[in-house]
């Protein structure tokens, strides 16, 4: 009788089942989108392509970058989406928008603005935080000095206290 290996690799059976679940949710959303929005849904799909790319390349757990890009990308797409929808969600309406360069500029430009925000916000935050940190360090160093004066150099963990 063949023995089992001492430690067999553990396979997380949750991962494929989750992906499958997500896949079927997407399929349902797509069917619902097509039923409700008709051809507007195709426009939404094309317009939100930068957001989808951003989602795929964003490995962050909280998906900050992709959600920022997606939010601005959607803001760029939404007004055209409403126009198409109000025109009955026909293929003609979609085609008309897709042949308009301004539409592309607005939709993808909005996504690009999202990317800019993702890049620029930490720089602004860094400048602001640097100022805050400097203040905090100054305060802590003052406290350290006071402690040394009160308890002597020994409080630093080395040396003898002096008057």
């Amino acid at each position, binding site marked *: 009788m063949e023995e089992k290996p001492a430690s067999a690799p553990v396979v997380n059976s949750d991962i494929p089942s989750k992906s499958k679940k997500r896949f079927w949710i997407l399929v349902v959303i797509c069917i619902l989108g097509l039923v409700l929005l008709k051809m507007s849904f195709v426009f939404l799909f094309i317009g939100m392509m930068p957001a989808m790319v951003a989602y795929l390349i964003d490995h962050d757990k909280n998906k900050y970058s992709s959600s*920022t890009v997606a939010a601005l990308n959607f803001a760029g797409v939404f007004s055209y989406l409403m126009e198409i929808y109000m025109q009955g969600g026909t293929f003609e309406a979609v085609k008309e928008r897709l042949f308009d360069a301004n539409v592309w500029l607005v939709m993808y430009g909005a996504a690009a603005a999202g990317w800019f925000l993702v890049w620029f916000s930490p720089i602004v935050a860094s400048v602001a935080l640097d100022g805050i940190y400097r203040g905090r*360090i100054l305060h802590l160093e003052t406290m350290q000095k006071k402690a040394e004066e009160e308890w002597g150099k*020994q409080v630093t963990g080395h040396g003898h*206290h002096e008057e």
Partner: protein
Amino acid sequence: MSEDHKPTLKQEDFVALLRQYTPSERLERPRDMVREQYRILTNQPLPELNSKFARAYAVRDEQAPELSLYALVFDSNIPLRQKNIAALKDFRHPNMVALLADGIAEIGILSESRYVIILEKPAGQQLSVLLSQGRNPVSENILVNFMLRPLVEILIEFGRLGISHNRINLSNVYLGKNTVILGECISEPSGYSQDPLFEPIDRVITSPLAKADFSLASDCYAVAVLMLHLILGFKPFDKISKDALVESVLTKGSYQTLAMQWDLSDSMHDLFRGLLNEMRRERWDPESISSWISGRLFNLITPSSPVEVSRSFEFMGQPYYSRRSLAHAMFKNWQEASAVLADTKLGRWIETSVHKPEAAEVVLRLAASYNPDTVRFERANNDLIARTIIVLDPGGPIRFKNLAVTIEGISVLLAYSLLTHQQDDVQTIIQIFESDLLAFWLEQQKSGPDYSALMWKLQKIRSYIKMNALGFGPERCIYDLHPGLPCQSPFVKRYYANHLSEVLYALNIVAPQRSANDDFVDRHTAGFIASKLDIGKELRIHELDVIPNLATNPKLIGLKLLMRAQTKTDMDDLTGLGFWIAIRLFSLFDTIHRASQRRQIYNNLRDVAVSGTINDIGELFLKPEVFVADYTGFNSAVAEYKMRKAHIADLKSNNSLIRQSRMAGRGIAQTLAYSLCLATVYFTLKSYFHF
């Protein structure tokens, strides 16, 4: 000015304050004067009346300058014959020099205080000088009536007073106007410089400083030897060495060695037979001599020869016919003596030849414990040899290595050895105490004086002598054993301080000179104070038990001793000592980390030091809450400091800034994007649905 802003006092400030201090009590003794009557003429030394422990000087009695007096100025490191001094102050006999006064005086040429005794200068010539001049025999009648009679009267009185002389010899007896004058007996410990010829064998073989203080029986022996010399008119044993004398007495007996060979009257031989007897119990006492003088006839036989057996015991190739001579030979050949214990020969000899089965049993038991590995078991074997010697000669002294001591005399030897830094002897005495040889010696005594009070004292010493704690050890023991001994600390020795209050005053006086380099309590001061306060348990600062290294700090224990001493003596104004304590304990406050606390303590310390109350100083140091609060506060401060330090390092590192900026930036971007998205959706929907 608030406490925090006062300048912090430094150790140098305390030193400067102490330098300005002048003690009110100078502990000054009269200079070269005793009792404001006797002036010690230190420019007129009398070396012929010196002893090893006291220097003699001429004295002028301011009230009666015609008197011929002299003073004995004692060294401070030797216990005095206190009982003799006390008794002789009131003792007067025309045939003995009178002790007129005693006291402590500052001796100018020595620049220190010393104990001084004023004595009458003995009139006449030393017998030793007279007898050296040729044959001058004294007739029996003069000898008995004008020489022996007064000496016996003195001895009878001594017996009544409970003292003995132990310095009756040719150099200390003077001949004047057809009678003898007996010299003093208080210038040295009992029998220290006594001529071996004038002592019975048990005292001859004892170390000079370790002889029993009271031995009237040996005075009787000495009187006999003195009479023998006077009746012969010369010094027949002048050339005999001490070893030869001991050998002869041990093998032939005292009477046979000294008196038997002389052609004297039967009556005189009776006297010598009665007195020159090694057996203390058989020797005549002063009353018996008095009876003999009165004409009572004694039918005395010659004292028995010391030879106990016909079959000898061989030791180092020599035959020994008595236990006492064998014991002495073993003592003199200590290294070789262990060989005697290697087999059962000695036990069998005592049983079969000496016919002492009980002693034989003890010796056999000791031999059974003997270990042939003399290097590893040297100490245990030394103990066995000492015990064997005691069993062989129970009437003799306790002999251990190079020392032979009596239980009455061991205390003097301990004190002198310790004070003259003879460490080997001190160690030997400690071993004697540790081995409990004193109790063993006592067990072997069939009869004799009641030693229970002395043994109780010595057993207490036994427990103290090995203790290393301040207030114990040999230093403590010598003050317990000699309550009159002044404190031997080099700080106060020159003041001859033999009371607690004097020691405190002396410390107060020397504080300005000593505070820089010395601690305020050394082992002698501690031992002296502990003895006077009868402290029986090792001192510990229980108040500071929570801080172990302070609870056993010797300086704090010294402080506690001084606190108790001041309480006991109810003294104040010890400002000098207070500053000394403050200076020497100043460093202890280094353990207090909090600067503001230290500042406050230093200021308080100065105030209490100025007050001169040691108890107040003690309260400052022995406050556990101060140390504990500081200790716990400091630990928290260290932890907080460490935490803040880590925090600063974290804030200073770019990684943290980058990480935090990225996190914050993303959050901002997301919020902004969501807001724009929502606004777009809202306004688009509004434009279509006009809400």
